[in-house]
């Protein structure tokens, strides 16, 4: 195996091990819940960054796949009496299919048109969820709890098991995304981000590459939705609302889009803000808006992008000095 692959694997194993021992070192229900939500939203935001940061496609409809994940999984568990791994596979497969259809229509479009059409599809799904009351519970959401049959000794009714399961999925999905971004496919996506015209002239089939990125990102986002469905024991129409896509974009903006872990840092920042600001003040939106303003005007980029640039500049200066 190559050195960079090994390094990523090593980082993943260390992070996973740290997450696994964390609850025994620091016992806190709040922290456990935080990591589970972190897993759900982190997978969601990082998968969106495959489109935004790597391919240069700003989708405003990514929440669509968070919702197909949560609803697909929730419905399968409630109605189909199948095992959790099978329900997960089916959900991810169905989300991929949705992404394939929506993507085939959207990825031909440029920038703002792409953003708006993905948004339109998401709102279509939102309306469908709200309107189809017998299946989805409409406004009330998918309630009544999820059956959680034990598999491989994992009982997701126990919060500690759900914690380990979510943390493992987070690390696994990040590894998949990291791998995709570092393959020839990932570099082809960067070509398309930088200069799609020229990519055509290199013989790249730009449409198919964009579509593949869209499907990959949508499928992985649905895993985030699955974790969320397990966490809240159901699914709610808000998952398919445009604000959900907006939050993922905030997470990327806050954490940075060019550094791989930027969206994860952004997820952590936004969740912390969410939890603390709401506790301190009623003016949550205002405070959050000010903080985001601070990032965009102050740093002019996400946190990790800012740090990475600062390190690069320092190195350059050191290089000139030596």
């Amino acid at each position, binding site marked *: 195996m190559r050195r960079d692959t090994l390094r990523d694997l090593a980082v993943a194993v260390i992070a996973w091990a740290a997450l696994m021992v964390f609850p025994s070192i620091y016992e806190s229900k709040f922290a456990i819940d935080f990591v589970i939500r972190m897993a759900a939203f982190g997978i969601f935001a990082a998968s969106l960054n495959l489109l935004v940061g790597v391919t240069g496609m700003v989708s405003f409809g990514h929440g669509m796949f968070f919702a197909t994940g949560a609803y697909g999984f929730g419905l399968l568990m409630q109605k189909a009496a199948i095992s959790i791994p099978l329900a997960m596979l089916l959900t991810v497969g169905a989300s991929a299919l949705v992404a394939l259809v929506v993507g085939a229509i959207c990825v031909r479009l440029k920038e703002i048109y792409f953003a708006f059409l993905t948004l339109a599809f998401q709102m279509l799904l939102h309306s469908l969820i709200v309107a189809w009351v017998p299946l989805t519970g409409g406004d009330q959401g998918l309630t009544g709890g999820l059956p959680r049959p034990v598999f491989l000794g994992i009982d997701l009714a126990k919060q500690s098991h759900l914690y380990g399961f979510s943390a493992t999925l987070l690390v696994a999905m990040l590894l998949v995304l990291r791998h995709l971004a570092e*393959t*020839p496919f990932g570099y082809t996506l*960067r070509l398309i981000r930088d200069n799609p015209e020229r*990519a055509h002239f*290199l013989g790249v089939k730009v449409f198919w*590459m964009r579509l593949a990125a869209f499907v990959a990102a949508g499928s992985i986002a649905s895993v985030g939705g699955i974790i969320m469905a397990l966490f809240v024991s159901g699914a709610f129409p808000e998952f398919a609302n445009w604000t959900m896509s907006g939050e993922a974009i905030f997470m990327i903006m806050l954490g940075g889009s060019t550094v791989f872990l930027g969206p994860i840092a952004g997820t952590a920042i936004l969740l912390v803000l969410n939890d603390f600001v709401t506790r301190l003040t009623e003016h949550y939106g205002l405070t959050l808006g000010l903080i985001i303003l601070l990032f965009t005007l102050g740093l002019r980029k996400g946190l990790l992008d800012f740090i990475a640039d600062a390190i690069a500049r320092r190195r350059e200066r050191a290089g000139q000095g030596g």
Partner: protein
Amino acid sequence: MLRVEKLRKSFGGLVATNDVSLNFPPGSLSAVIGPNGAGKTTFFNLICGLIRPDAGRVILDNEDIVGLGRAAIVRRGVGRAFQVASIFPTLTVEEQVLAAVLSHREGYGRIDTRFPPADARARAEEVMSMMGLLPRAKTVAANLSHGDQKLLDIALALVLEPRVLLLDEPTAGMGPEERWQMIEKVQELWTREKMTLVFIEHDMDVVFKIAQSIRVLSYGAVLAEGTPDQIRRDPKVIEAYLGTAHGAEAAS
């Protein structure tokens, strides 16, 4: 090798390419010249599939390539560099040349290996060294000098092992020194790779120095074609384009 027949394209009322028929023999080095707005770049765009002609044929090795996509035409061996260097600004020189190598080998969608696969390196280094870009391999393209960006643009086309290479003003925007370096590179490339090379150029010193044959376009139509000597003496060309300076020089 490359032949166009009765090629025609108009934009609204403007006829940008007017029944152009030209032949570029295999291994030739030709210049396309003409005043601004003569339709030179449009001519290139028609050949490489960026725009579709209203009528006419583009024949590459006895095959009509009109209507094939850009990617398909590239795969048949038509490479192209642009007037304004068309590169990938956030990637390093090495990264984009490697990515181009993978694209040429149809390995650009692979997810079974990390980038770059070891077997792509040799070819990337060969092309970078051919264009004198090896010292800049680790530089992010946006930070390259103007001249190096133009060289990179050509390098990206070269990776595809074109049999026909179209260069749109390779020396545009360059100072005298950079310009002659570029011209030497182009000539060296042509001698070494034995490709059919067609370039658009405004600098007549450059054109007369290296072109074997010249095509003159004016108002979308072919005004003249011939060897540099013939073109220099052609009264129509002198009147429409060269003006008296080169004409006088040629006459003396």
